[in-house]
């Protein structure tokens, strides 16, 4: 009689113990390696997790210096995550149809709980993403991170840059207000601008890539319901998918290309570390070494000891989390002080005056005010192709991993900055004060204006300057440093003029308070 009672009590007790232990066991089953206290469990923590194992198990101490990357890549990733979360929230209420779109944004702004705040965060995070992507690209360029073996990742990064701009541009139409409608009308007509050339040559009837691009973008011949649903599809589905896929490749390649770029003598330049704090390999992580032994060629660890590396958990991950929190804090703070704009309902009969695109496109808009094709397609294509060619034209190795490394160095960059800013301001001042070819010779052929306009002249001067640098320093890196710097400066000058000094009819004004009242 007594035996079954004991059995029963034991089983109940076991059940109770299991119940109490369930949360701990759930955690154990999720993170199988236990708490990351030793080098071995820290390694397991990284490669036992599908999301974390894009990182390597150990991180070089050079990578963790603030000045190596300034955390810009992680910041742009963080901004993307923020737009992802807030974007999904906005989709609960947004309706992508012309009659309903404007009202739904108004609802989000004035009625939906926290709607205005979420929309502000979405907009600010998008802006932060554009800024950090540009700065990240500049960091990669100035530290020579595009060089062998990272050429391909530089190209992936350019894809990410273009996709980021595409996401911003498609998001701009969705509110369906005056600002959105006219910015997209101008954008779609830039897509059509190859007609400027085909018209001048008289071949548009047979060969019309411009009209085709515009039709594909708008799905119609005007910005209407078809265009809105297309932009919506691109904004919430197609481009985010492309971006995510490219991001995965980008991150994976960082690791496969040997981690963040560092100078060849990084180990000597780093201060001796305190061995006692993070001893190398308290337990040998057998797994990584077995892998490293059979992998040939350049991987992070082959042929190198673990010296000067620290476990990615916690050092790298905590740094990344700090950047994520900082990015989120910046977006939240900006959202509290400044609301996302919403103008009147779109009116296809009356253009907004001035009709300004988002700020990062105003440099382009400044150039399309000279020639639609050259400013909107020709020069951007030259810039994109040039950026893509840089890693294949500069095959030098000196200065890799150092800011402004290579022949010329920081003095060259300073000189190029002065030259780039000066030339751009000079040409703009000339155009604003004296006009351009059409004002001097009325009736001049359009082809001449397309080929010789302030934008192409500036591009040509910048190109010649860079060739001169290659000869002067006898180095392709010097030319690349100069070229990248002057184009960055040109972008800056045109953007600032577009944002602050252009008013109605795209006339030059010193201040918006001088704009004519109407």
């Amino acid at each position, binding site marked *: 009689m007594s035996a079954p009672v004991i059995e029963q009590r034991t089983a109940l007790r076991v059940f109770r113990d299991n119940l109490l232990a369930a949360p701990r066991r759930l955690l154990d089953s999720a993170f199988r390696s236990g708490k990351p206290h030793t080098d071995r469990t820290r390694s397991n923590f990284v490669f036992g997790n599908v999301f974390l194992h894009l990182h390597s198990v150990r991180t070089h101490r050079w990578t963790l210096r603030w000045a190596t990357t300034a955390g810009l890549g992680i910041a742009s990733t963080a901004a993307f995550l923020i737009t992802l979360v807030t974007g999904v929230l906005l989709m609960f209420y947004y309706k992508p149809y012309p009659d309903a779109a404007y009202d739904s944004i108004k609802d989000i702004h004035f009625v939906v709980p926290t709607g205005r705040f979420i929309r502000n965060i979405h907009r600010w995070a998008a802006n932060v993403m554009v800024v950090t992507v540009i700065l990240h690209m500049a960091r990669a360029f100035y530290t020579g991170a595009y060089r062998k073996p990272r050429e391909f990742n530089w190209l992936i990064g350019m894809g990410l840059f273009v996709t980021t701009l595409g996401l911003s541009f498609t998001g701009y139409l969705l509110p369906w207000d005056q600002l959105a409608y*006219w910015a997209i*009308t*101008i954008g*779609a*007509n*830039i897509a*059509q*601008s190859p*007609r*400027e050339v085909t*018209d*001048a040559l008289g071949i548009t009837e047979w060969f019309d890539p411009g009209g*085709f691009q515009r*039709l*594909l973008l708008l*799905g*119609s*011949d*005007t910005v*209407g*319901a*078809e265009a809105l649903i*297309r932009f919506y599809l691109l904004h919430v589905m197609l481009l985010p998918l492309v971006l995510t896929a490219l991001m995965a490749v980008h991150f994976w390649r960082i690791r496969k290309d040997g981690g963040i770029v560092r100078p060849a003598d990084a180990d000597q330049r780093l201060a001796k570390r305190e061995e006692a704090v993070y001893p190398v390999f308290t337990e040998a992580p057998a797994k990584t070494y077995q892998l490293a032994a059979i992998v040939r060629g350049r991987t992070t660890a082959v042929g190198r000891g673990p010296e000067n590396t620290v476990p990615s958990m916690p050092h790298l991950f905590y740094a990344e989390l700090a950047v994520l929190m900082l990015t989120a804090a910046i977006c939240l703070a900006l959202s509290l002080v400044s609301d996302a704009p919403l103008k009147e309902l779109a009116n*296809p*009969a*009356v*253009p*907004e*005056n*001035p*009709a300004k695109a988002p700020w990062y496109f105003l440099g382009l*808009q400044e150039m*399309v*005010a*000279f*020639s*639609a094709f050259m400013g909107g397609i020709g020069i951007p294509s030259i810039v994109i192709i040039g950026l893509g060619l840089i890693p294949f034209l500069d095959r030098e190795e000196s200065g890799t991993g150092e800011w402004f490394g290579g022949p010329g160095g920081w003095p060259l960059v300073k000189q190029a900055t002065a030259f780039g800013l000066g030339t751009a301001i000079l040409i703009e001042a000339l155009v604003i004060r004296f*006009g351009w070819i*059409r*004002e001097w010779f*009325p009736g001049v052929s*359009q082809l001449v*204006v*397309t080929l010789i306009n302030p934008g192409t002249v500036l591009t040509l001067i910048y190109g010649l300057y860079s060739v001169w640098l290659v000869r002067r320093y006898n180095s392709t890196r010097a030319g690349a440093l100069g070229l990248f710097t002057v184009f960055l400066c040109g972008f800056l000058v045109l953007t600032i003029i577009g944002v602050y000094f252009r008013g*109605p*009819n*795209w*006339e030059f004004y010193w201040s918006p308070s001088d704009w004519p009242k109407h």
Partner: protein
Amino acid sequence: MTVKAREQKSRLDPEPMPRRDFLGLSAIWAMGAALFFSLLGMLRLPKAAVLSSPSKKFRITLPKALAAGEAYVPPGRAVAVFRDDAGVHAISTTCTHLGCIVKPTTEGFECPCHGSLFAADGSVTRGPAPRSLDWLKVQGSGDAWIVDEESRVPPGTREQA
């Protein structure tokens, strides 16, 4: 395939492709071609065949008191219609630069987006516009006219009332 002992080849010579490899490669290339062409076919979908925009041909009634050189803009349309002694003509007010709507002024037209200026006959006088504004076909008599935005006519063409 059979290889005779005498014809043993150097290892540097290209190997003849065995039949099975050939069939396998053909299958892979056929699959690639099928995927490529079906993808091309799918890409036809986003190119709209029928445009959903409103009719490009519309009726207007000119105001009786329309002075010579004064523009009449039908509501909701990007067209300016003029009447003078020589007849009636219509000029498209869609800027040839980037599609903004130009505003008729006493001297001609001005574009608010990038500052292009046009003379009264639509020709470019200033700014980035690549060509002059289109003249559109008009038909009718008295005050009732039909404008066809899809038919361009040479500049200077006027229809007698």
